[in-house]
């Protein structure tokens, strides 16, 4: 593995142009097209932020531009039965077959990494384009430099990277292909605030250097506003309406359509949606004590054996104490990897404490015993409800209505509450739908509703607002404020300062976990 001169070849990147004429796409097995009647012209080197409600076909468009639409359907549908109308061209030719002309980054950092060593992963795309060996390593070094990861050795394991680093690594892998078109599909939706800026700044630096065309899809306008020079708002296309609702420079679009965008759930800069105020925010420390953590040490790892030896678990955090009180919000904040979720899951009776204890008061336990981890599942759900970050992890049936009835049926009571929850969380029209087919916002609302159907006195939520549009966000915050006023305790793990402010209550800030030698 030679390390040839680092800036030997400087093949200029040729920015790509995009032309859509009446373009439409229907996924296999779907009645309605995902995109319909799209007319759009993007000049080489332009930087476009793509906005629009979920269901407007933003991701479909990016996949089509990347030339990967049709082969592999996320829902496992048969691609041969999908349907294309009109034309979509990159540099005047169909995107499929122009390998390497466009680079695509998706949302989930884990699936943006292909190989297990940093250097190999960046080289992967260039190898596939049959770039000569020496040129590949020059490109790898340059790309890692551009995304700010050049301090890592080439054989550094990719599994040891943070979410933000993984996304920057993916960007380096894209840059090493020297694409004229960079496509980002919600690249920062799963990242903490520091990770978001890391990735945004890396993208900015690379565009300034290469001049490539950019199309980015994101809810959070403020993050990308200063980096793009054009905003395009899509709407679900119909026979009469054009798919492009608005198109223009960022400031103009945001000025003209601020109210409309906000109403559509877009996070326009400086806008915090109205939420229901707490009626008489009780003072910290008041309310009946329900649950207490004392000197808790937490870890996801279970004690394991290696050979005959018992390996002690290394806690990610230790000596945490906290109190959960009726009608009180507790926000758990801190950087990624600090063990916030692990602590919340331990508090919720889902993980066993490594040291210290979690104890439920008689008020909460009602005869089930002091330690929530030892409760039976049926006992747990009517005392402590937990909403996971990924709603799909919690779906146990094939129908929205069955999901909601699942808890009450197990408990043998509470079915009458389900209608009210459906109504309150706007799921009534979806009762017969399969939970997996819902939009992101609908899945979130459903996961909250299913847990609440068992009527728990403590509600624990893990990053409930991640990747949500402003409307779902506001609904959720208002709904939780109502629950709090009704006497439920709400514990949320969150990076979202506005959300914490909307709920009030106390904040438990966890410091970054100290690296412990294994």
């Amino acid at each position, binding site marked *: 593995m030679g390390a040839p001169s680092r800036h030997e070849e400087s093949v200029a990147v040729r920015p790509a142009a995009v032309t859509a004429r009446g373009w439409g796409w229907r996924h296999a097995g779907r009645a309605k097209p995902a995109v319909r009647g799209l007319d759009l012209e993007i000049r080489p080197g332009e930087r476009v932020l793509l906005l629009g409600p979920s269901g407007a076909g933003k991701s479909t468009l990016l996949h089509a531009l990347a030339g990967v639409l049709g082969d592999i359907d996320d829902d496992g549908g048969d691609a041969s039965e999908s349907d294309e109308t009109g034309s979509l061209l990159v540099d005047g030719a169909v995107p499929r077959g122009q390998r390497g002309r466009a680079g695509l980054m998706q949302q989930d950092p*884990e699936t943006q990494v292909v190989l*297990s060593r940093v250097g190999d992963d960046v080289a992967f795309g260039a190898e596939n*384009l*049959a770039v000569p060996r020496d040129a590949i390593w020059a490109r790898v070094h340059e790309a890692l430099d551009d995304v700010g990861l050049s301090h890592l050795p080439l054989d550094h*394991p990719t599994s040891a990277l943070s979410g933000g680093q993984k996304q920057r690594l993916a960007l380096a892998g894209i840059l090493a292909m020297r694409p004229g078109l960079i496509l980002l599909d919600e690249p920062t939706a799963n990242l903490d605030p520091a990770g978001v800026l890391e990735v945004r700044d890396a993208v900015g630096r690379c565009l300034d250097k290469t001049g490539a065309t950019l199309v980015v899809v994101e809810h959070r306008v403020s993050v990308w506003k200063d980096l793009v020079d054009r905003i395009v708002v899509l709407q679900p296309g119909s026979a009469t309406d054009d798919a492009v609702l608005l198109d223009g420079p960022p400031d103009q679009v945001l000025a003209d359509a601020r109210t409309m965008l906000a109403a559509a759930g877009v996070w326009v800069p400086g806008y915090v949606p109205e939420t229901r105020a707490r009626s008489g925010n009780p003072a910290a420390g008041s309310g009946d004590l329900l649950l207490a953590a004392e000197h808790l040490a937490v870890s996801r790892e279970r004690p394991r054996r290696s050979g005959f030896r018992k390996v002690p678990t290394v806690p990610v955090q230790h000596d945490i104490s906290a109190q959960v009180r009726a009608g009180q919000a507790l926000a758990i904040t801190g950087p990624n990897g600090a063990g916030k979720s692990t602590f919340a899951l331990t508090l*919720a009776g889902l993980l066993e404490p490594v040291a210290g204890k979690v104890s439920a008061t008689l008020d909460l336990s009602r005869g089930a015993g002091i330690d929530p981890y030892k409760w039976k599942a049926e006992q747990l759900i009517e005392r402590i409800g937990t909403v*996971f970050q*990924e709603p799909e992890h919690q779906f*146990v049936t094939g129908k929205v209505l069955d999901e909601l009835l699942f808890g009450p049926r197990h408990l043998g009571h509470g079915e009458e509450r389900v209608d009210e929850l459906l109504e309150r969380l706007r799921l009534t029209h979806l009762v017969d739908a399969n939970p*997996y087919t819902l939009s992101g916002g609908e899945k979130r609302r459903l996961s909250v509703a299913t847990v609440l159907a068992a009527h728990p006195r403590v509600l624990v939520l893990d990053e409930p607002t991640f990747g949500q549009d402003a409307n779902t966000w506001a609904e959720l915050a208002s709904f939780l404020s109502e629950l709090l006023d009704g006497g439920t305790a709400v514990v949320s793990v969150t990076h979202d300062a506005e959300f914490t402010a909307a709920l009030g209550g106390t904040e438990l800030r966890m410091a970054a976990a100290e690296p412990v030698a294994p």
Partner: protein
Amino acid sequence: MRQELNLRGNQAPLTRANPLSKFAAVFLITAVLALSIDWVSASVALAFEFLLFPLAGLTLTLLWQRGWPLILAAAVGGWSTSILAPDSGRTLIDVGIWTMSEGSLELGIGFMLRGLAIALPAVLLMSCTDPTDLADALAQKARLPHRFVLGTLAAMRLVGLMAEEWQTIGMARRARGVGSRGSAVQRLKATLGQSFGLLVQAIRRASRLAVTMEARGFGGGRRTWARESTFSALDAWVLAGGVVMAGTAVVAAVSLGTWNMVWLGS
């Protein structure tokens, strides 16, 4: 929790040999041992294998951690052979239906040693071979289709993630009231449900990874390799070592008269 798929910290000489030559040497040794059940050839091979430990960066502790199921299986196999094999010679133990004689004990020990001698090279091979290097060698030197090799390599990275996902889904389901404790039937039902959840997530992850790979130009005809898989003088030594080990084992067994071809009967 997540298994590392590389050999961080292992600087042993054999990590630098080409995986294919290591494979060939291991194949040679195990093929010879598979021919005969006798304690001489197995012991000779075992002795050589223990000598190789430092060269592969393996220690007894690591061996036990990675290979204990194989070691236990060999021991159990040896034990059952020695009590069940046809008796010959002096009877050593006689407990009702179980009898162990000199002949059956010899066969049992031979069986156990042979099991160990066949299993150890695999442990040795895995402890000094990085999956990425193996993939490079298989695609570039053995000319296996690169789509298949790299697809498998990328999928292996997801296996570690699946272990984490399994735990998360288990907790998420408990939070929905699905108990994973209780009677055997209840636990089986819970495990089946959890497996289905994992399968759904695995398919979703895999299809997203496939999109990522395709968007990076994967799946085309010609591709280059950033790292060349090469053979060096070390590989000649590895092969020679394999030949010497296999040969010594056979010669020792034949000259001591214990060579005992499996299919010829005893």
